[in-house]
């Protein structure tokens, strides 16, 4: 993995709100095709980290590089080009209430200048993205007409419709029942393995990270399967743990489970 290009780099990034540090000197590198699972308690800075990676939040100090470009000095208009290469699933889905699901999913295709999608192709690509998340029959519905899990899936479709090389997921399974949460995780792994995207996923559920690290999408069977049962391996998964804005752990799942840090251990559960 070390020879693969760095897609996202945080270099001693500090972000604070009203004098309170949300991120404190956070540094890491995410390489192409890598999956990163970011864990931490509520208020530990997980969402701020993702928003900083997107350039939605400006760091007080330090630098953020995405696709080799420094985001920290960029103006909003310049950031649009970089953001078109990133997909983001927001915690509350953040679908636009006043637009139908079709219009929501079509939004990045029509509004991101760098995407260059001809208008006649938009409908087909939206249908394709919604089929990917198994929501093909919801084109004309409004977000308020869908269940929480369906909204999350529609938001995933919107995040990946432009086929971005880097996808950021903010608590994709938060507030969902175990079956729906598994469906969402299966979609995330499918997206990662089908499109070979670099993935950053914020979660407080250890089982989500475990799925990400040990399962891969089998396109023939159309479902997840354990990744280590043959020649094909799951992409490398790195776990990160944030505590009060500081990155206190970064490493493999084995190292995470071996950690003696009492805060880190709170997130670790025995593997199934």
């Amino acid at each position, binding site marked *: 993995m070390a020879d693969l290009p760095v897609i996202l780099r945080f270099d001693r990034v500090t972000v604070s709100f009203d004098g309170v540090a949300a991120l404190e000197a956070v540094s890491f590198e995410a390489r192409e095709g890598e999956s990163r699972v970011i864990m931490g308690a509520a208020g530990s800075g997980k969402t701020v980290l993702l928003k900083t990676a997107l350039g*939605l939040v400006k760091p007080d100090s330090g630098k953020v590089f995405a696709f080799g470009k420094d985001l920290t000095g960029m103006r*909003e208009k310049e950031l649009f080009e970089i*953001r078109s290469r990133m997909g983001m699933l927001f915690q509350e889905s*953040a679908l636009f209430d006043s637009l139908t699901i079709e219009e929501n999913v079509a939004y*990045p295709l029509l509004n*991101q*200048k760098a*995407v260059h999608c001809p208008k006649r192709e938009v409908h087909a690509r939206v249908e394709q993205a919604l089929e990917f998340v198994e929501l093909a029959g919801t084109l004309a519905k409004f977000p308020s007409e869908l269940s929480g899990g369906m909204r999350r899936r529609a938001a995933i479709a*919107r995040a990946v419709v432009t086929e971005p090389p880097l996808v950021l997921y903010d608590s994709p399974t938060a507030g969902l029942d175990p079956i729906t949460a598994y469906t969402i995780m299966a979609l995330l792994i499918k997206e990662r393995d089908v499109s070979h995207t670099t993935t950053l996923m914020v979660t407080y559920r250890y089982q989500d990270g475990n799925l990400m690290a040990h399962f891969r999408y089998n396109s023939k069977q159309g479902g997840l399967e354990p990744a280590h049962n043959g020649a094909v391996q799951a992409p490398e998964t790195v776990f990160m743990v944030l505590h009060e804005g500081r990155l206190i752990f970064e490493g493999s799942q084995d190292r995470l489970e071996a950690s003696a840090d009492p805060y880190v251990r709170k997130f670790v559960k025995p593997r199934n």
Partner: protein
Amino acid sequence: MVASSYGDRPKLLELLKEPVSEFQDFFLLAGRAYRNLLRRPHYWDDVFLQMDSIGVGSLVIVTLTGFFSGAVMALQMARALQTYGQVGRTGMLVSISLVRELGPVLSALMVAARNASGMASELGSMKVTEQIDAMRALGTDPVQKLVTPRLIATASMLPLLTTIADFVGMFGGWLIARFYLGIGSVQYWNSVWKILVWNDVLQGLLKPFIFANMIALVGCYYGLRTTGGTQGVGRSTTQAVVASGIMIFVLDLMLTQCFVYSAS
């Protein structure tokens, strides 16, 4: 609060920091909204949607307000004019007070109550559900998409609504003058028409235009700075209505002073 000693200075600065910062943020937002008038893309669909919501949506309340304020003005003015035996001039006073003051101010207050609150709550809800962040993440400037269309729509609709309110108010005054005070229709409408000069018409159109700019910007400003979930949305909505209501009176005083000064 007055700084009583050198040691109080940091406290005073702390107290001033927030309002100064808010003031600055408001003008930054206003600057960006006006700058976007000249920049692409222009979201004309949103502009027309807002024109419908603000203009057509406010028509009934503005018409009712105009009608009753005209009728009440006729009643009150006739009573005052009776002292001088000049009841026949009721139309003049109704006309001047409506076109110069009541029409612009009452219409603006109605639009502020209905639309500044609507803008603050809609944008506030979008803010707390991360839809504003999503918009930015998906390549759209929220000021261009949300604020500028509301600004254009309010600035074009409020002068029209005010004009309608003025005419409906004069009509309300005529009903009272004709059927309650026994003033002839020709006499009433003549006095209504003849007293108005271009300065009044200008005043009657310029005031709502300026009020409209302020209403849209205040509504959007409070919406976009919403924090704290649904409670925060409620707070922003209240703040938007209160601030725009007060600002209408402050601006009215300033503008009236300008017109009085220029006329003299």
